[in-house]
């Protein structure tokens, strides 16, 4: 288990401010945030490259705040692989074994086993300069895993790969995580990766931990407006409390206040994926929004429809499919009903 307690650090133009975070053994934590949020610095703090100005880092209950990286047993994989160019793949992978208490002949079999697991056995005698991006990243992951680290840090490991390779390697990392019960902290700014990996998500911006939770919660019910915007819940409406009830309202939308205090500001968040488009002839119901489609954009796997709703400040964005669009004969200007139903939640700030 790794635990960060109030960790702060400034390094070059990056900063981490008062981050408290916990990852249990065997968990998969994805750290997301915009570019320059301090994600890589956070990983390098955990790794021990930089020491925090304030706060503590605990590894399995032991204070490692000022322990040098070589004593921590944490593996690191960077986006640009950073294989040692003067060593072949086998010697790259065996690099860390010299520092482990293992007999010499076992080293070779360990490298062999790891190479087989990652499907890079045939590359063992090649030099990094001759490998493709996907192969390099497999070697980098293998090099880190051969030493059996108690924690594996991945710094945007897929972002330098083309999407086919990235998707395949993503699946392989997930398999490794499950099969070897690895504890992994994975940094990315790619939402597709966040969705695919699941597990826990920590959202970081300007060096601060903005939100943390399970992938399902963070993506479907983001706890803050910033998180909602970051994860693509673009439908955010400021709402007012209705007197003498546990409801908040924004135009025609009503939602449960979920016990939040009446003194805070309320926002109603609607995920574009969770709205159903219906023919405009349907009867009125709560949270069934009547409006006109103002634009349709084909995004490849879905169609994004922007709807102007009567009485609601700001448009509603709905992700639907081509079949629905043709069933409803949707075109800019056509009337439509956007059925939100219960698929909305309230954020208090």
């Amino acid at each position: 288990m790794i635990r960060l307690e109030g960790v702060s650090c400034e390094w070059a133009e990056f900063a981490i401010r008062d981050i408290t975070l916990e990852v249990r053994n065997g968990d998969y934590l994805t750290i997301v945030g915009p570019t320059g949020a301090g994600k890589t610095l956070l990983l390098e703090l955990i790794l021990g490259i930089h020491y925090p100005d304030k706060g503590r880092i605990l590894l399995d209950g032991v204070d490692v705040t000022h322990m040098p990286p070589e004593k921590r047993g944490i593996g690191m994989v960077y986006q640009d692989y950073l294989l040692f160019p003067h060593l072949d793949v086998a010697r790259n992978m065996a690099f860390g074994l010299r520092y482990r208490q293992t007999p010499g002949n076992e080293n070779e079999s360990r490298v062999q086993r790891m190479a087989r697991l990652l499907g890079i056995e045939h590359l063992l005698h090649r030099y990094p300069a001759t490998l493709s991006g996907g192969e390099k990243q497999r070697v980098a992951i293998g090099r880190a895993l051969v030493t059996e680290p108690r924690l594996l840090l991945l710094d945007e490991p897929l972002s330098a790969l083309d999407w086919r390779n990235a998707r395949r390697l993503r699946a392989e990392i997930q398999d490794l995580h499950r099969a070897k019960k690895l504890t992994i902290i994975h940094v990315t700014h790619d939402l597709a990766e966040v969705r695919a990996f699941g597990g826990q998500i920590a959202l970081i911006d300007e060096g601060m931990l903005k939100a943390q939770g399970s992938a399902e919660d963070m993506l479907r019910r983001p706890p803050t407006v910033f998180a909602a915007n970051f994860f693509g819940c673009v439908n955010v409406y400021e709402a007012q409390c209705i007197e003498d009830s546990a409801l908040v309202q924004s135009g025609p939308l009503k939602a449960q206040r979920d016990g939040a205090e009446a003194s805070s500001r309320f926002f109603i968040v609607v995920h574009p994926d969770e709205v159903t488009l219906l023919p405009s002839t349907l009867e009125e119901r709560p949270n069934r929004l009547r409006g006109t489609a103002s634009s349709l954009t084909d995004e490849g796997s879905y169609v994004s429809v922007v709807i102007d709703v009567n009485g609601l400040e700001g448009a509603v964005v709905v992700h639907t499919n081509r079949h629905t669009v043709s069933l409803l004969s949707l075109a800019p200007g056509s009337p439509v009903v956007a059925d939100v139903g219960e698929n909305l939640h309230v954020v208090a700030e």
Partner: protein
Amino acid sequence: MNVESPIDRSAGHRRFNLNQTFTTLLILLPFTCVCFLLRRFVLAALFPVVGFLLLVLARPARRHRPDALLVAFALVGFVLLLFLLLPILNLLLTTDGSRILAVVRDKSVDAALGVTLGAAMISTIVALAAGVPLGYVLARERFPGKAIVEGIIDMPVAVPQTIAGIALLFIFGRGGVLGAPLYTHFGAQLSDTLWGIVVAMLFVSTPFVVNLSRDGFMSVDPRMEYVARSLGASPVGACLRVTLPLTWRSLLSAAIMAWARATSEFGSIIVIAYYPKSINTLMFEWYNFFGYAHAKPLAALVLLIVLAIFITLRTVAGARRTVHTRNQT
């Protein structure tokens, strides 16, 4: 200096297309030199022009004709190369071999060569031992005042040699700030000893070691060292197993340049240590007392030795290598 910038390499496809024109110019260089040395000046001047015209006329349909501006620059550079090469070639080619052999047998030459080569070697080793770590610090760390440090490192290049000698005497001379206590306590003396020559050489060759080793270390991504550390290597281990294997060519270049600079030092050496006579001092003496014709075979001999060492080491250091640039996001 043989440190190729990554930019040169990224423009590789363009260089390939320009190759022929420029290589032709390069091949013409020795012919032109020889014409000059034979005092056939018109022919020498015509050589590159005619050769170049022939090249252009012979291949009128070349798809990638080099940029006229670049060709003009190359022609100007050609003259500069001639300027550098002619005096050296002239000295080597026009000196009587038997007179060089006579000089080799001269005892005083033997001793002076030993002094110069020995002192240059010692000063290079000291410069490496102290300058490479500083180069590493300058490559890895950003700190306020770094520009000042780099300015101090470059300063000896700008200080005239005789001034350097006089300034060093006030510190290391027998009455100097450090020289006086060294003499009274240890009986050690730098003026007019081999160590004085080493100190003078060290002063002028340090910039090369620090700057070239810094450039070498900068070409290794520090995150490469982080990865090595995460795998269990200590800071020293990461340096020995990752950084050094990736930078030894740069360090060798640094050593070569420092050694070459040390060997060529004269001005500050005659101020600090006229004796033991180093080779440049001896040559100066011969030139001064007997004229330049007398000094010529000695000059040719020293040139041969220095060039042989220089070219050998540069060939070792100059083989192609990969450049690792930092790519932080």
